[in-house]
């Protein structure tokens, strides 16, 4: 049976810049950075130190498996900001929001209360947007009395 999610792909425009963004700004760690032969594919993965079993592979569109036209379309979608790359969780959304913002991460939304937790939105340096969420303790809250 399926045991879990190990690797998920994020399409980036430049692997050097992405590596810097995901480590220096987001605080993730590099798991693998290797190039397969001269001019070959560069396999670059990052992950959270708190979650060794999951990593993101930062891939540039292209390669033998993708025709140039598709690669160009994918690059364009990323750049336009049309693609979301996932949800990253935190146990201190307000502190981490400030920390990331101070490092120059481009936020689309400040932390806001949602039924599922407190959520901010940011983009990576390529244009992918991430939800940055501190999940609500006790799970989804649809019953809370919001009356002032």
């Amino acid at each position: 049976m399926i045991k879990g999610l190990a690797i998920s792909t994020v399409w980036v425009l430049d692997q050097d810049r992405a590596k810097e963004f995901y480590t220096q700004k987001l605080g993730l760690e590099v798991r693998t950075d290797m190039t397969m032969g001269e001019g070959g594919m560069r396999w670059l993965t990052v992950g959270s130190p708190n979650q060794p079993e999951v990593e993101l592979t930062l891939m540039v569109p292209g390669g033998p498996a993708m025709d140039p036209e598709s690669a160009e379309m994918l690059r364009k979608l990323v750049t336009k900001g049309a693609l979301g790359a996932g949800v990253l969780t935190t146990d201190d959304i307000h502190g981490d929001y400030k920390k990331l913002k101070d490092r120059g991460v481009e936020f689309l939304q400040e932390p806001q209360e949602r039924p599922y937790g407190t959520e901010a939105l940011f983009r990576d340096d390529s244009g992918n947007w991430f939800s940055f969420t501190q999940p609500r303790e006790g799970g989804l809250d649809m019953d809370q009395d919001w009356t002032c």
Partner: protein
Amino acid sequence: MDKTRQIRLAKDAMDRDWADPGLDLDTVAAHAGYSRYHFIRAFKEAYGETPGQYLTHRRIERAEDLLRTANLSVTEICHLVGFSSVGTFSARFKTWTGLTPSEYRTKHVGRGAALIPGCYAMLWAGGFRSAPGAGKQNPSGEAQQRNSGEAG
């Protein structure tokens, strides 16, 4: 900088600051580093509508939500979503939805109390502003919330 990225930065500014009545074309175009004229053309090429249409679209969508769910007056909603004139708001709203804000509310709101208290909707939509044009406030985004729902 890549041209598409520049245009996206301007779109992001509209998604962030849509509730700010002071958000005009020059401000938005400046985020892209473009002149007004080139910006309008480039934005439309990238996103299929002009920046003005995009911003109006976003604001009307949020107004629809508030009209359906919050016990706020049409005037309050008009200012909350970033319009400074009720006349303009009503006209644009009718262009998009085919109904005036009041007609829309009558058609879509159920009997009895509003589904969400106005105070909550106001905070959710960006906080209480002292006056229209008082400055940029908390960004929010119902569209962004929708997006995050899809990802989550």
